[in-house]
Every structure is written in structure tokens, then in C-alpha cells.
């Protein structure tokens, strides 16, 4: 049953969203039906609840973490559920007439139902976390409801503020509830409610309390978080009527009451809750007097009444709790009706400004009467429900609970606030319904449709009945609720209009008389004053909030983001290097690292000499890279060559071969790119060079670089000087031949032992080639490099100037002899490539080296003959070669599946052929063929794609020129 009660509104919400935007009536019927259904369900459960039973429904959700979809209904929850559904039903009826057809009404009802569901969820949650979930849901849905008229800036701001404040509070509360779980060991409400002492005695109690109160007080709009509520009045009135009477703001009160048994009774509770409640009570009432907007007045009055309830809860006495629960219900009835009345007036007259409204009694007597009765209830006039709970409040206020100043001032504050309440209630009635005939109202006022008034009638009737015969009407329900909260601590109380001549009554009289008097004094001022109370007008919570929010979440955030982050590359690189240095240094130095001792014995002078050259190359390249790019590239080549010699020297012929080939290709590649980097001329007057800060920056960079170099040197020296640990290499050395079928262990590792690495590595090459290709298709050179290079233009000009020469003769002449040699080199390089490929498994070489070598052969032809010349003669499909290579490599690996072996299992054997003799047949060779094909394709693709830019550039240039011409022409 409980599940149905919860799910029905959400289901209804989903259904409503599916109704077309312009169909208002079906949506209203749907919502009404759902609300009625829920109400009926709740009502049907009353007998069970009344018998003192607690209904539970458990659905396992996250049992390991103690989060279950547990629904729990006791008397208090029942009371709230009924309130939520009943007032919900009334508001639906009201909204049916209130909402204009031009609005997307189904969306309204959908949100409304969702909100009802969320609120019911809060009320019925039997698990703290579930409660937090529904709690935040109410915040989210209320955000959408308040912002329903989002074309209105006030609505947007109001919605946002409401969400920001209640949402934040909700998150704090969530942590608080989790801490309760930490203390208690369960989130289950039943268990939590029975663990009051454990919670109150826990060292984390204060933290928990503060966090939960942050949630409750923000939701209930308690000072100093109250300011969002008046701004939420930008919502459609049915929303206000619902959210601010029975539901949203009451959620805070609900939570305080719900957890009252476990949290209340301590000094901290008394002070925090009491202070917040008292100040809210007084300030809300005071502010309400000075509102000019009807809904604003009601909003502040709501704040004040919530403060009243909070004060009651703060006191920690069971009787006060009873009063709090009672007032919660009373407030819901009269405040809902008042909001609806205000909405009718707004709806029928087009304004809510009390300065413009007056004398409406003549035009809408029924509404006026109803509003007057409701106001009286709000003011605490006898024979109305508000009076009863207020009397209880006064009675509790004069009781001494704690000996401190707060407790002492409570009766006075209560009386004063009550006086203010009388004043603003009078003001509300008087300025709207009495006085002269209204003039220039946007609409001619008249009574609303009957069904729009019906909900108010019902509620006012309830006020009256409860106020006159409380114990017959509300009594049993209240008792059920109270009993479920207080349990054995339920005090004896009596619901009666007349308790005899006592101090509370005297206080009521003072409040009534004082309130009327105050109103009479202030009437002239209020008739014309501006919105907002004197003294506090400038101290508007909303403005402070906005300013703080903007400062924190925008200005400060941006400045911190700029300071703590950067969008420039250089600082990022510095940070990366600095962090790496720090990481290495801290790790080593904290453990007492000592670099290995320096031995000079094994230094080979020739080797040292070569590296002297290599180091000069490296430093030179670093030095020249800015202004002499070509020189830097040459020097880089020198360093690479020395690296290559090192590999030979130190027993790595494979590396030497590969490094050398890659070196050559890289050089050609960068040269190809250099054509598109316009020249950088050193300017001795460049201010960048001169400034002190630049010098300091360079000095710092130099220091970083030196530290990095030193670090690498020390670590590598230490590592190389140490004994080799027991390594997995010996396995490879032992089995490369017997199981891998090759004598070149490095190659066997590459194509067999760790062939998977190679597969990945060629895939990287493939990816890069594709990327380069794709990027170059959209390449646009800098304008200054668009022109054909100067040399070519000069040489072409030379050819053109001489009658017996054709354009291009110069280059043909220059390349006459070189191109002959380069062309004949093609098959030679091809043979070398084949050689490297075939012997790779046994001796230095392999598919990769072969592929690169072959690509150098191709590039040589391009250099000799030019792009067009080569492509007219040779079919070059690098993309295809790449694809084939990748497929061959993968397929070779997959082949082993056929024999039931894992991917890439290779098979090696020597086949004996007639005449030829034994030849090695290892599947790894096939894999290497794939590597070869891919490497060839990728390298050629990269180089050619870059080379093609030279062919493309003139074309792009032509297009641009043509376009410019067309522009001029038009």
C-alpha cells in the first residue's frame, strides 16, 4: 500500500508529461484523480495507524550499504501524508481554474505530482538516506515549479536561489544523516529513533546536529536562510499555496520533529534551534507588516510561523512538541487558504500590490469573507484553529526549560511577534477588502468561478471546526501523530478553547489589542510606503546572497582558476619537469640514496671522444634551434649518429641499424616540414632578448634543465654501475633458438616472445600515419610560405628569360646526374631492404628496418624526380599497404587459434627442400612481413602526404587569387 502511495504521484507525473501541451483539462483530471487516490489510500490506512501500529514496506536496494527503499508510516507520517495529499487535492482543483491556457499546463501538473510524490517520500521514508533522496528531490522539483514561468527573470532568480540554498542545506543534511548512520550502525529510521542516547553522547553529535540543522533550517526558511522564500513567490500561486503551506517548507519542520527524539534536549540543540526560531519568528512577523505584495506578506508570515514551530521544537519539552505538531497542521490549513485567496485576487484583478487594491469586499464578498476568517486564524483570534496552537505556544513559552537568557526572553518575543501577526493580518484584510473603490486595476474584479473558491471554503471550514471543537475533530489524529513521535514521553494535554483565565490568555489579549493598535498607527504609512521594512530594507538577504554567490562562484573562482591554472604550454612543461624532479628526488633522498662511486677504469678514450662530439651536437642543437633551424637539425643528426655508434659499441647492432634508418627518415621529414616554417631572423633589437625578466626566466629554465640532466645522469650512472638483478632475459637467451627459431634474440623477442608489443607498436605507427594524412588534407600553410620558394622562382625566372630554355630546365640540369644515380639506387636499396628483412630473425635487421629502408628508397625517387614524376610511374598505395600489413600481422597471430594455441603463438621449423637445402620457416617471419608492409606504408604515407603539400600549395594559391578577384569584381 505504501509503495502504491509513493509511486502513484510519480506515475501520474510521467503520464501528465505525455499529455499534449494544450490539453489542460485532462491533465487536471489526472492530477486530481491521483491526489484523491492518494488521499483515499492514506485515509484507508488510518485505522491501522490509529491502533498504534507502524506500517513498513521494505524493498532491497543497496542492502550492503544499509540503503533500502524502506517506507514507514506511523501516526506522524500519516498526519503529514494526509496533509500533503489533501491540500494537494485542493490545490489541483484550484489550479485547474487558476492556470492560464497559454501556459504548458500539463507540465505544471506533471511537476506538481512529482513534487507531491517527493514530499510523500520525505514523509514516508523509513531510511535516512532515502529521506535525503526525497528531500533533495523536493528541492529539485520545487526549483522547476518556482521557475515555471521562466520567461520571467524573477521566477528564474527565485528558483535558482531556492535550489541553491535548499540544495546546499540538503547536501549538508545528507552528510549529517550519514554520520548518524556511522554512529548508530544503520540508516533505518526505527533503529535510529531508538538510539537517541548513543547519538547525543557521541563526540560527533555537534557536527551531526549542525549539519542536519543546516538542512532543516534552510528548507524551513529559518533566519538567516529565510530570504529565498519571498523570492519563491514568483511561482504560480497554486505552487506557493502548496509549497509554503503544507509541503516544502514544512519538510524542515517535519525533519526536526522526526528527529526530535534523538537530537533534541541538549544545550546545543536548544541554542541553535531556539535562536534561529526566535529570530525568525520575530523578524518574519516584523517584515510581513511592511510588505506591499500580498504574497510577500504571506511569505514572511509563513517564515514567522515556521519560526514559531521551530521555537517550540527547540524547547525540548514534550508539550512543546505537541504544540509544534498541532501548529504545523493549523498553519497548513489557514496559509493554504490565504495563498489561494491571494491568488484569486491576483487572478481577478491583475495585481497583488496592496497599495493599489482596496474595497474589494464589494466585488467579491464570498472570497473576502473566507480570507477574513483565514486571516483571523493566522492572527490567532479565538474560535479558530490558530488560536489554539498559539495558546499552547504561549503556555510553553512562559514555562522555564533552561535557565538562560534565551529562555527568559521567549515569552516577550512571542507576545511581540503575535502582536505583529495581528497587525499584518489586519493589514492584509483591510487594505485589500476595505476602503475606497479600487481604480485603474488591470482587470475589473468579480467573484471567481465557484470551484476555484471551493478549496478555500473547505479549508476555512476546517479552521473553524478545529478552532471550535478541536477535541472532536482534530484530536484523535493529533494524538496518533504525537504518540508516534513522543512514544512513552507523550504528555497529557487537552485540546480546548477555554483553559480559564491564565497567563497565555492574557498574552493573547495583549497581542490582539496591541496588534490592532499598531495597525491603526501604521495604517497611513503603509498605504503609501515602499516595499520592505524600514531599517532592514537595505539589508536584503537576497542581494547579499547574490553578491556573495557571484563573488565566490564567479569572480573568485575565475581568479583562482587563472592563478592556480594556466592555459600556456611553457608553464605546464616546467611544472611537469619540476614535479618529476621532485618525485624522483624525494623518493631517493628520503631513503638515503647515494650515487655510485665513479670509476674511470673502463673509459674508452675513443668512446669518450665520440660522446664529446655527441654532447657538443646536443648542446649546439639546443642553442641553435631558435634562429638557425637548419643548423639545429644538422646538429641533431650528429647527436643521433653518435647515439647510433653507441649502440654498435655496446652490443646492440639491431638498435644501431634501426636508429640510423629512423634518423635518416626523421631528417627528411623535418626538412619537408621546414619548408612550411617561414624563416625566423634574429633581431638583436628584439625587446624580448633584452629584458631582465626574460633573462631571469631563462636562467630558471636553465637551472631546471641542468637539474633534470644531472638527475638523469646520476640515476643512470647508479643503475648501470649496479649488479644486474636476476632478470627474465635469461629465459629468452636460452630459448630464442630452441623455441623461437631464431638466433637474433632481440628479433625473436620482437616478433615472438613480445610480439604483442610489436603489434601495438605498428598500430601506433599506423595511427600516426592516418592522423598525419587526415590533418594534412586540411592543411593551410601560413600565408608567407604559400609562395613557391624563392629559389624555385628565381630558377624558373631564369629559364623563362632565356628563349631557348623551358621552365624547369634549371632543375633538370641540376638534378641530371644526381637523379640518374638516385634512380639506380632504388633497386639497390630494395635489395638491402630484402636483405634486412630475410635475415632479421637470425641477425640484425627485421621487418621494421626493412620497411624503413624501403621507404627511404621511395623517398629518394621522390627527391630525384618530383612528386608528379614518381606517381606517374609507380603505383603507390600506402594506405593499402598499411591495411594489408596490419591484417597480415593480426592474421598470423590468429592462425595459432586454428591449432588451439593462444594468439601469436609462433611455430618455427626448418624445412628441407631439394637442392636448396634447409630453410627456416617460422610463422614469425610472416608476422614480420606484416610489420614490413605496415612500416613501409606508414612511413611512405607520412612523407608523401607532407611532400604533396608542395603540389597542393600552388593550387590553393590559385583558388585564393581567383576568389580575391571575384570579390573585387562584385
Amino acid at each position, binding site marked *: 500500500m505504501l509503495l502504491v502511495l509513493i509511486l502513484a504521484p510519480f506515475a501520474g507525473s510521467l503520464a501528465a508529461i505525455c499529455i499534449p501541451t494544450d490539453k489542460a483539462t485532462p491533465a487536471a483530471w489526472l492530477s486530481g484523480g491521483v491526489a484523491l487516490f492518494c488521499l483515499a489510500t492514506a485515509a484507508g490506512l488510518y485505522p491501522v495507524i490509529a491502533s498504534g501500529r507502524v506500517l513498513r514496506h521494505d524493498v532491497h536496494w543497496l542492502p550492503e550499504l544499509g540503503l533500502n527503499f524502506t517506507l514507514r508510516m506511523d501516526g506522524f507520517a500519516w498526519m503529514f501524508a494526509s496533509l500533503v495529499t489533501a491540500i494537494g487535492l485542493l490545490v489541483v482543483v484550484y489550479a485547474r481554474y487558476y492556470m492560464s491556457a497559454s501556459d504548458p499546463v500539463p507540465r505544471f501538473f506533471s511537476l506538481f505530482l512529482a513534487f507531491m510524490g517527493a514530499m510523500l517520500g520525505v514523509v514516508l521514508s523509513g531510511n535516512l538516506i532515502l529521506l535525503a533522496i526525497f528531500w533533495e528531490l523536493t528541492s529539485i522539483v520545487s526549483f522547476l515549479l518556482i521557475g515555471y514561468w521562466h520567461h520571467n527573470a524573477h521566477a528564474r532568480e527565485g528558483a535558482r536561489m531556492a535550489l541553491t540554498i535548499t540544495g546546499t542545506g540538503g547536501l549538508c543534511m545528507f552528510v549529517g544523516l550519514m554520520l548518524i548512520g556511522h554512529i548508530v550502525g544503520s540508516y533505518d529510521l526505527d533503529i535510529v529513533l531508538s538510539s537517541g542516547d548513543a547519538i547525543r553522547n557521541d563526540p560527533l553529535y555537534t557536527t551531526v546536529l549542525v549539519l542536519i540543522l543546516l538542512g532543516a533550517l534552510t528548507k524551513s526558511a529559518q533566519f538567516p536562510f529565510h530570504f529565498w522564500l519571498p523570492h519563491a513567490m514568483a511561482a504560480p500561486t497554486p505552487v506557493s499555496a502548496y509549497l509554503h503551506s503544507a509541503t516544502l517548507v514544512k519538510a524542515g519542520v517535519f525533519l526536526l520533529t522526526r528527529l526530535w527524539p534523538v537530537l533534541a534536549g541538549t544545550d546545543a540543540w536548544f541554542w541553535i534551534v531556539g535562536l534561529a526560531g526566535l529570530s525568525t519568528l520575530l523578524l518574519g512577523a516584523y517584515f510581513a507588516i511592511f510588505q506591499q505584495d500580498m504574497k510577500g506578506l504571506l511569505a514572511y508570515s509563513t517564515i514567522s510561523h515556521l519560526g514559531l514551530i521551530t521555537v517550540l521544537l527547540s524547547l525540548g519539552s514534550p508539550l512543546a512538541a505537541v504544540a509544534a505538531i498541532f501548529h504545523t497542521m493549523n498553519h497548513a490549513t489557514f496559509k493554504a487558504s490565504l495563498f489561494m485567496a491571494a491568488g484569486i485576487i491576483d487572478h481577478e484583478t491583475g495585481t497583488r500590490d496592496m497599495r493599489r487594491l482596496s474595497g474589494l469586499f464589494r466585488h467579491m464578498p464570498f472570497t473576502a469573507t473566507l480570507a477574513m476568517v483565514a486571516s483571523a486564524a493566522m492572527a490567532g483570534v479565538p474560535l479558530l484553529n490558530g488560536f489554539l496552537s498559539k495558546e499552547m505556544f504561549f503556555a510553553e513559552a512562559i514555562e522555564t526549560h533552561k535557565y538562560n537568557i534565551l529562555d527568559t526572553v521567549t515569552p516577550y518575543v512571542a507576545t511581540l511577534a503575535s502582536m505583529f501577526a495581528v497587525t499584518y493580518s489586519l493589514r492584509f484584510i483591510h487594505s485589500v477588502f476595505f476602503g475606497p473603490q479600487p481604480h485603474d486595476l488591470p482587470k475589473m474584479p468579480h467573484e471567481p468561478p465557484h470551484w476555484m473558491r471551493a478549496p478555500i471554503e473547505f479549508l476555512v471550514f476546517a479552521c473553524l471546526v478545529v478552532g471550535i471543537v478541536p477535541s472532536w475533530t482534530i484530536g484523535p489524529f493529533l494524538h496518533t501523530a504525537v504518540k508516534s513521535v513522543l512514544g512513552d514521553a507523550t504528555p497529557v494535554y487537552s485540546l480546548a478553547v477555554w483553559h480559564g483565565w491564565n497567563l497565555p490568555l492574557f498574552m493573547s489579549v495583549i497581542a490582539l489589542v496591541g496588534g490592532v493598535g499598531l495597525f491603526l498607527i501604521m495604517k497611513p504609512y503603509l498605504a503609501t510606503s515602499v516595499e520592505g521594512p524600514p531599517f532592514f530594507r537595505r539589508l536584503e538577504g537576497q542581494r547579499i546572497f547574490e553578491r556573495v554567490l557571484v563573488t565566490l562562484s564567479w569572480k573568485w573562482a575565475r581568479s583562482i582558476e587563472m592563478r592556480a591554472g594556466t592555459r600556456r604550454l611553457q608553464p605546464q612543461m616546467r611544472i611537469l619537469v619540476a614535479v618529476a624532479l621532485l618525485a624522483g628526488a624525494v623518493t631517493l633522498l628520503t631513503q638515503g640514496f647515494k650515487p655510485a662511486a665513479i670509476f674511470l677504469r673502463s673509459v674508452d678514450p675513443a668512446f669518450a671522444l665520440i660522446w664529446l662530439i655527441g654532447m657538443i651536437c646536443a648542446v649546439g642543437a639546443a642553442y641553435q634551434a631558435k634562429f638557425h633551424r637548419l643548423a639545429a637539425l644538422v646538429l641533431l643528426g650528429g647527436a643521433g649518429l653518435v647515439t647510433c655508434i653507441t649502440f654498435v659499441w655496446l652490443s646492440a647492432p639491431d638498435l644501431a641499424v634501426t636508429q640510423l634508418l629512423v634518423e635518416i627518415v626523421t631528417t627528411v621529414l623535418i626538412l619537408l616540414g621546414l619548408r612550411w616554417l617561414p624563416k625566423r631572423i634574429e633581431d638583436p633589437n628584439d625587446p624580448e632578448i633584452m629584458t631582465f625578466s626574460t633573462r631571469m626566466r631563462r636562467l630558471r629554465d636553465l637551472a631546471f634543465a641542468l637539474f633534470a640532466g644531472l638527475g638523469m645522469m646520476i640515476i643512470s650512472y647508479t643503475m648501470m654501475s649496479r649488479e644486474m638483478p636476476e632478470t627474465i632475459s635469461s629465459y629468452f637467451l636460452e630459448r630464442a633458438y630452441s623455441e623461437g627459431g631464431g638466433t637474433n634474440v632481440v628479433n625473436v623477442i620482437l616478433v615472438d616472445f613480445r610480439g604483442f608489443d610489436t603489434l601495438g607498436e605498428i598500430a601506433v605507427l599506423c595511427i600516426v600515419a592516418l592522423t598525419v594524412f587526415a590533418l594534412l588534407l586540411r592543411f593551410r600553410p601560413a600565408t608567407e610560405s604559400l609562395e613557391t620558394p624563392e*629559389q624555385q622562382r628565381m630558377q624558373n625566372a631564369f629559364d623563362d628569360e632565356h628563349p631557348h630554355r623551358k621552365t624547369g630546365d634549371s632543375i633538370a640540369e641540376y638534378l641530371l646526374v*644526381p637523379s640518374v644515380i638516385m634512380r639506380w639506387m632504388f633497386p639497390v636499396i630494395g635489395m638491402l631492404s630484402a636483405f634486412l628483412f630475410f635475415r632479421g630473425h637470425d641477425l640484425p635487421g627485421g621487418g621494421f628496418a626493412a620497411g624503413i629502408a624501403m621507404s627511404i628508397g621511395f623517398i629518394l625517387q621522390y627527391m630525384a624526380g618530383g612528386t608528379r614524376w614518381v606517381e606517374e610511374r609507380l603505383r603507390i598505395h600506402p594506405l593499402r599497404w598499411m591495411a594489408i600489413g596490419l591484417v597480415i600481422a593480426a592474421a598470423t597471430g590468429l592462425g595459432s587459434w586454428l591449432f588451439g594455441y593462444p594468439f601469436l603463438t609462433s611455430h618455427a621449423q626448418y624445412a628441407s627442400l631439394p637442392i636448396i637445402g634447409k630453410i627456416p620457416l617460422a610463422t614469425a617471419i610472416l608476422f614480420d612481413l606484416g610489420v614490413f608492409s605496415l612500416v613501409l606504408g606508414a612511413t611512405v604515407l607520412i612523407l608523401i602526404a607532407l611532400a604533396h603539400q608542395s603540389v597542393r600549395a600552388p593550387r590553393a594559391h590559385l583558388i585564393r587569387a581567383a576568389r580575391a578577384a571575384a570579390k573585387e569584381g562584385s
Partner: protein
Amino acid sequence: MTHLTDLPVWAAIPVCLLLLGGSAITLVGSIGLIRLKTFYGRLHAPTLSSSAGTVLICLASMIAFAVLQNRWIFHEVLIIIFVILTTPVTLMLLGQSALYRDRIEGSTDVPRKTTGPEPDLSAIDI
């Protein structure tokens, strides 16, 4: 595993001499890179190492391996052939581009291009 020290004296002497000679010539060639004053002069320097240097050292290698490993295939010949075939390409292109750049800079030390009159080469900077 063989070692160079296994080389008999009759082979060691020519090998060492060839090596020393080849490397000395190479060094002289490289010194030429420093000492020769003009670029065109320097263009000749590397040919020392690419001709005599390479040949001598390759010879040393041939003898050494032939003796040590007792086989008579001289694949070092390939190096000689390749060096002889490829060095001209570089040097030729370098020489030509130097010539070209000198010409457009208006240097009087280089011969004009043999064909036709001079184009207007003012205001050019490379």
C-alpha cells in the same frame, strides 16, 4: 668467438698499417674541412675519407676477416662501391646550391651561369 689478437703477425701488420693509414687520411681530410678557406675548397676535403680512407680501412677489414674467419668473401667491396656512388650526389648538389647562392648574392668569385645573359638579381636575400 674469435679475437683480433688471434691474428697472426703477417696479417696483423698490414691490417694495422692500413687502419692507421686510412684513419690518418680521414683525419687529414677532415682537417681540410677546417683549414681550407673557401667552401669550394672544402668541398674536396671529404673525398679523402670517401676514397682513400674508405678503401684502406675496408682493405684492412677484408684482410682481418679473411684471416680470422677464414673466408674469402669481401662484402666490404659493397661499402666502397656505395660510397663512391653516393658521395658525388651530395657533393654535386651542395656545390651547385653553393654556386647558385653565390651567384644570386652577386659574388664575383664564381663563374656566371653559362647560358645567356644574367637575370636581374637585385634585392634577394637567402
